[in-house]
């Protein structure tokens, strides 16, 4: 105990607040304040480098920020430090990393491993996992498997459910059903989900509702600026505003979605060379997200 006390004094760790600090970082991540989350997670990691939760938080921050090599390093440490003992969250982060770099099958493997970690009664996390599996199957173009995973997830308030449902129904050509699903819930949707709904429905009124909601949160970290830039670069037909928003957002983070939006905005402003170069960099990460590939295809940029 003396040694522990001396150690704590030496490195300045207050063990009683360690968990509280992790919770605070998770809140920052939920708010998409990735840069603040990363800084705090780095401090946590320096103070207690054997704690794998800090690597998980770091990886999540780097994934959100688009620092994929840093995310990989954090995930690799997380894996190496707990040989044979990854937890649910660790597998999920690994899965999301693999999705980001285009390894959808590897991401599904990690989802399977995460499911092994779950207790039978842990229905909430099992549902989330099934929804994520549905999302990955959808990315892989396996609509039937996506549907089965979605059905198995059951009814849940998980935001991933509505997004996956909208995407899946859109891919299935069941737009009416997609609209039926969200009927009465639209007021509770995040602007990012409103954009998805507008895209699925192609309803001008829904685009207007999305634009209004998105502009209200433009200056927050949990914004819909990527979607707003895509909207203005396309249906909204305000290319210069699209580029202004995309540049501002890409100064804050550079994940594949944000950089894709920048490429689309550049292309809409006829800055073709920079647009293609930006898109090539996006594809170089390895992403196989269908919407990104569709934008790349429009620009004539092919994945390697």
């Amino acid at each position, binding site marked *: *105990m*003396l*040694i*522990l006390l*001396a*150690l704590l004094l*030496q*490195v300045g*760790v207050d063990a009683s607040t360690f968990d509280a600090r992790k919770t605070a970082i998770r809140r920052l991540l939920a708010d998409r304040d990735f840069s603040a989350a990363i800084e705090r997670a780095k401090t946590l990691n*320096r*103070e*207690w*480098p*054997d*704690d794998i939760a800090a690597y998980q938080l770091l990886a999540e921050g780097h994934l959100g920020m688009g620092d*994929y*090599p840093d995310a*990989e390093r954090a*995930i*690799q*440490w997380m*894996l*190496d*430090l707990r*040989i*044979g*003992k*990854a937890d649910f969250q660790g597998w999920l982060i*690994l899965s999301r*990393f*693999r999705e980001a*770099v*285009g*390894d959808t099958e*590897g991401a599904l*493997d*990690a989802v399977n*491993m995460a499911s092994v970690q779950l207790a039978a009664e842990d229905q909430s996390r099992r549902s989330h996992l099934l929804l994520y599996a549905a999302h990955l199957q959808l990315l892989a173009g396996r609509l039937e498997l996506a549907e089965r995973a979605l059905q198995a997830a059951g009814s849940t308030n998980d935001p991933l459910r509505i997004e996956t449902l909208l995407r899946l129904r859109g891919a299935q050509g069941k737009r009416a059903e997609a609209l039926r699903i969200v009927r009465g819930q639209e007021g509770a949707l995040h602007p990012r989900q409103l954009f998805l709904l507008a895209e699925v429905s192609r309803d001008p009124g829904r685009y207007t509702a999305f634009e209004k909601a998105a502009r209200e949160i433009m200056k927050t970290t949990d914004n819909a600026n990527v979607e707003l830039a895509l909207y203005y670069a396309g249906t909204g037909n305000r290319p210069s505003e699209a580029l202004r928003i995309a540049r501002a957002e890409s100064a804050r983070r550079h994940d594949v979605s944000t950089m894709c939006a920048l490429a689309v905005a550049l292309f809409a402003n006829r800055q073709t060379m920079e647009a293609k170069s930006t898109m090539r960099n996006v594809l*170089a*990460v*390895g992403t196989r997200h269908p919407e990104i590939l569709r934008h790349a295809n429009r620009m004539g940029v092919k994945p390697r």
Partner: protein
Amino acid sequence: MQMWKNTLAVSLAIFMAAPPNFAANHREAPITAIDHKADITDVFAFRSYDGGATPRVTLILCVDPLQEPGNGPNYFPFDSDILYEIKIDNNNDAVEDVVFQFRFNTEQRLPNLFQVYAGVPGGANAPPNSPPPVAPGTPIVPPQITSFSDAGLGQRQTYSVTMVKAGVSTAVNGSGPFYAVPENVGPRTMNYNALFNAATYTTNTPNVKVFAGTVDDPFWIDLGGAFDTFNTHIFPVLSPAHDAASTNFAADFVSGYSVNAIAIEVPVTMLTRTGAVEPANSTAATIGVWGTTSRARLTTRRAPLPAVNSGSWSQIQRMGNPLINEVLIGTGFKDRFSMDQPKNDIQFANFFLDPTLARVINALTAGAVAIPSPPRNDLLPVVTYAPPIAAAGTPAGPIADLLRLNTGVAPTPPATASRLGLLGGDPAGFPNGRRLFDDVTDLALRLVVGGVLAAPFPGYNPAINGMLGDGVNVNDTAYRTTFPYVGNAPSGRDRRHIDPGEPGCTAGAGLPCPI
């Protein structure tokens, strides 16, 4: 980007590798507490002192601590899934320039017997009243094991040695296979000494010898006392008589246990960056040594077929100086320390240069043992290339846990060597390298509270700071005087662990502890 996918694809399978082994031993990091086969207990590096015209260095890596020699029927083979390495930095950047790699192969030769080693002198056949279908006279128990080809050596291990230098791998071969010495099961089953003597191999690389096997744990310490929050049986100060004695006044807690040792002897010229034997005052004379154990990142379980390893290696453990991870690195840092590279040790600098251990001793003695103020630059010679180990002018390099050895310092003849190494006026001893008989527990205590590698700090009291120790001064088993220097493993049948309560083992009162 493809590389990431490959790396993490491999990482996925780590969780299928899962080699948990549970045993109680003096493991220093949580991760090796569940993977004791990969746990490094000690690293030794010293100028060979068994004569010969060619200046040579002996490097020893000990793993798998506190093996109970009687713990059959399977005992403690080297792990064929582990890559064992001894690494040498010779240009002061804490990155390996010369690496010796060891891989083991295990062969089961007595699949129908219930234990892996069996033998009696002359063998034992079925007697006249042997029930059918075994006919009288049929060999039942093989003859005593006296060589590696004997039938009773049911579990036989061979190993390969590879030297990696400048990115080029070179096999170090002998005239035949290299066999590892098994556990010393007992005097009926085997002539352990004969096996040990046969297991030192000269190789086709001039002046290079190798050895591997289960041997006596060469370390000694009042382990139980040390981790009872420094409630050692003699604490903190030795009397001059105790300090000077080549005997023990407290029990050696690792007495009667064995470890697995890998030893290689190479010419100094193979290790220095100039390829020459440098004088001690040369800035090219000092090398940094550390050992590592690694496991493959990918293991494919193919039951009923054997598992297959593939992919890159993941380091499980490393060790340079003794007791660094054990008593300096904080519990929340030990795994990261074990798995990280020495060149990144700046992140642990606070543990090296403001050791908690020193503050604990200061507190437990109510200040009677004064300690220097941080930053403890007096400890820099242990974690950088600096005098008095390295020659003046040697680039210090980054802070890194390497066992530094000035290869230009001639070995001290055993008769005049001091267990207190450099602090005892013996220039060829720890912390200038580490010999088997260097009392690193007492040395570490004195270094950590002493400031003795530089000018002693104000408040240093040689009668207190300079006399710290645990009263365990020597090993329970004699070391050999020639390569590989380690001692014979205790007999599994007759082993004994010396206990604190034994006559003489009463914290210095009465006769010395049995050795």
